[in-house]
């Protein structure tokens, strides 16, 4: 077996027993990266030297009995998270040469546990998109079919894990940006409860939705990663001061006594037939595992997307004001006034999608429109929260598709500017409400594209998500299946 295709927990066991070294494991992953990266394009910045150095250090720490939870395990980082030793572009020309002076807390925690950082992963510019096509640098492809997108915005995070260019990765999720690419690329992807993982050092898109989470090859790895990155951080005033459980202990067989709700609104118009089939089959598997399946309703689903986009873009317009060509990032040449410097630096530095969202957000917050758009959307957010609160009175978890469709073909969404926004309908409610949500590989489309199954739970119910996700994973019969990339090598 090739070391690069191991899960984190398999590699961890082999490192612990001394069967392999962190250097051997890292060399295998780097060689795999060399072989497939020309096709997959998951990385914006590769960290070969740094990774080998970290692997040597990991081996040395292990020999001294000081191995952390992730000691010697090669992990990739979405390029939205600040790294003190690697430039952080956020997929944007405006940050092309940005070298952060510090690590994001989630990155610092990975490093503290001995992780080997393989590099910075490709993404939609400022995490604004659902296909990673807005990235100013390398646009990742779907390892299962290179004519299809990897999804987004954490497209590189999903593609790299699926193509074995790292064992696991970190992504971020503002409206589905971890779960949708995980679904498209056949990996596990978790958006934790809002506040579970510190956002310090994450370049903000929509601060009241943004959350960092892991993308992994299986549920056990996801539990391991969350344990490493979760926890209170005084540097993020929204981080939750709650103990971090040993998530791995929630991976146990059987779901008896657990009620799983199936929202009728999530199986409506526009749902691809193959997605419907895979998710319905997954629901049967959860029932076989002992769960009670009940029908529920989330009546404001059809309004949630409009509310989500108005709020996200409003928050983005405010967050992205910091990119002004003064303290960091791109600056336009030969500006004679400060105002001209702001305008030209921003106009030349930002891509079209980012400009669009800043404009709409500014409009939604502007005098005369605030009540009709931003305030209205924030009130509808309350209605969506109420829907979920009521639903969780009747069930413990909610099961649904992640995306209404499998991975789009490149360019497919450019014909209809609304299509790509509408495809986020099934993931955005977790962000509006701050609840945890996971995508588990459920099966494949007729064309061989992966399809994920989404499980959502109440605040801080990650253990329950892992338990149900793990039970599903044991029953799908596709665990360990990887894309055939021999053509790419």
């Amino acid at each position: 077996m090739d070391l690069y295709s191991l899960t984190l927990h398999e590699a961890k066991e082999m490192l612990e027993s001394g069967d392999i070294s962190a250097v051997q494991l890292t060399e295998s992953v780097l060689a795999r990266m060399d072989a497939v990266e020309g096709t997959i394009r998951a990385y914006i910045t590769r960290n070969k030297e740094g990774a080998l150095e970290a692997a040597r250090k990991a081996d040395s720490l292990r020999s001294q009995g000081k191995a952390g939870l992730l000691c010697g395990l090669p992990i990739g980082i979405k390029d939205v998270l600040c790294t003190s030793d690697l430039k952080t572009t956020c997929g944007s020309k405006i940050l092309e040469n940005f070298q952060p002076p510090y690590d994001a807390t989630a990155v610092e925690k990975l490093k503290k546990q001995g992780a080997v950082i393989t590099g910075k992963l490709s993404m939609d510019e400022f995490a604004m998109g659902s296909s990673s096509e807005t990235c100013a640098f390398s646009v990742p492809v779907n390892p299962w079919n290179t004519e299809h997108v990897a999804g987004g915005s954490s497209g590189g995070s999903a593609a790299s894990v699926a193509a074995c260019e790292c064992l696991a990765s970190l992504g971020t999720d503002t409206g589905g940006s971890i779960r949708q690419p995980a679904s498209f690329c056949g990996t596990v992807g978790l958006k934790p409860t809002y506040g579970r993982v510190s956002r310090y050092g994450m370049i903000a898109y929509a601060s009241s939705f943004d959350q960092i989470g892991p993308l992994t090859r299986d549920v056990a790895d996801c539990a391991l990663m969350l344990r490493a990155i979760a926890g209170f951080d005084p540097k993020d005033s929204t981080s939750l001061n709650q103990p971090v459980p040993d998530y791995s202990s929630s991976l146990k067989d059987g779901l008896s006594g657990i009620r799983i709700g199936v929202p009728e609104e999530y199986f409506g118009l526009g749902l691809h037939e193959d997605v419907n089939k895979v998710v319905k089959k997954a629901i049967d598997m959860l029932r076989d595992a002992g769960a009670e399946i009940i029908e529920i309703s989330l009546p404001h689903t059809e309004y949630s997307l409009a509310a989500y986009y108005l709020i996200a873009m409003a928050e983005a317009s405010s967050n992205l004001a910091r990119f002004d060509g003064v303290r960091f990032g791109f600056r336009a040449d030969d500006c004679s006034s400060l105002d001209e410097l702001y305008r030209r630096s921003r106009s030349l530095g930002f891509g079209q999608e980012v400009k669009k969202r800043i404009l709409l957000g500014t409009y939604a917050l502007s005098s005369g429109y605030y009540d009709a758009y931003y305030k209205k959307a924030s009130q509808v957010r309350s209605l969506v929260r109420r829907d979920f609160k009521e639903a969780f009175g009747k069930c413990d978890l909610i099961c649904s598709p992640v995306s209404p469709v499998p991975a789009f073909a490149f360019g497919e969404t450019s014909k209809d500017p609304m299509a790509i926004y509408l495809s986020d309908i099934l993931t955005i409610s977790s962000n509006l409400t701050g609840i945890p949500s996971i995508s588990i590989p459920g099966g494949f489309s007729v064309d061989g594209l992966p399809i994920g199954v989404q499980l959502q739970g109440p605040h801080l119910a990650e253990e329950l998500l892992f338990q149900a996700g793990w039970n599903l994973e044991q029953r799908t019969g596709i665990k360990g299946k990887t894309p055939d990339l021999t053509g790419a090598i």
Partner: protein
Amino acid sequence: MPKITEKEIEYVAKLARLELEPREVEKMTHHIGLLLDYAAKLQELDTGDIQATTHSQDISNAFREDVAFISLDREAALQNAPQQNGEFFVVPRII
């Protein structure tokens, strides 16, 4: 609600410190118009006395002890500046 106009997009661009080419104004007006048409759906809901949610968790202020700590040193804070003089960020003359 009336359709957003090119003039309004130009005004919003000014507020957001963005300069748009004429063809960008046209495209943005069209695309943002589509998004706003879609958002008009929200007006169907009566939200009269509903409290707005700005945060998904029920937490209010996060206080900490008021103690001094070492922050980023000056050199590190200036390291990414397009123009600086070792002490300050340098911008075009303001007055």
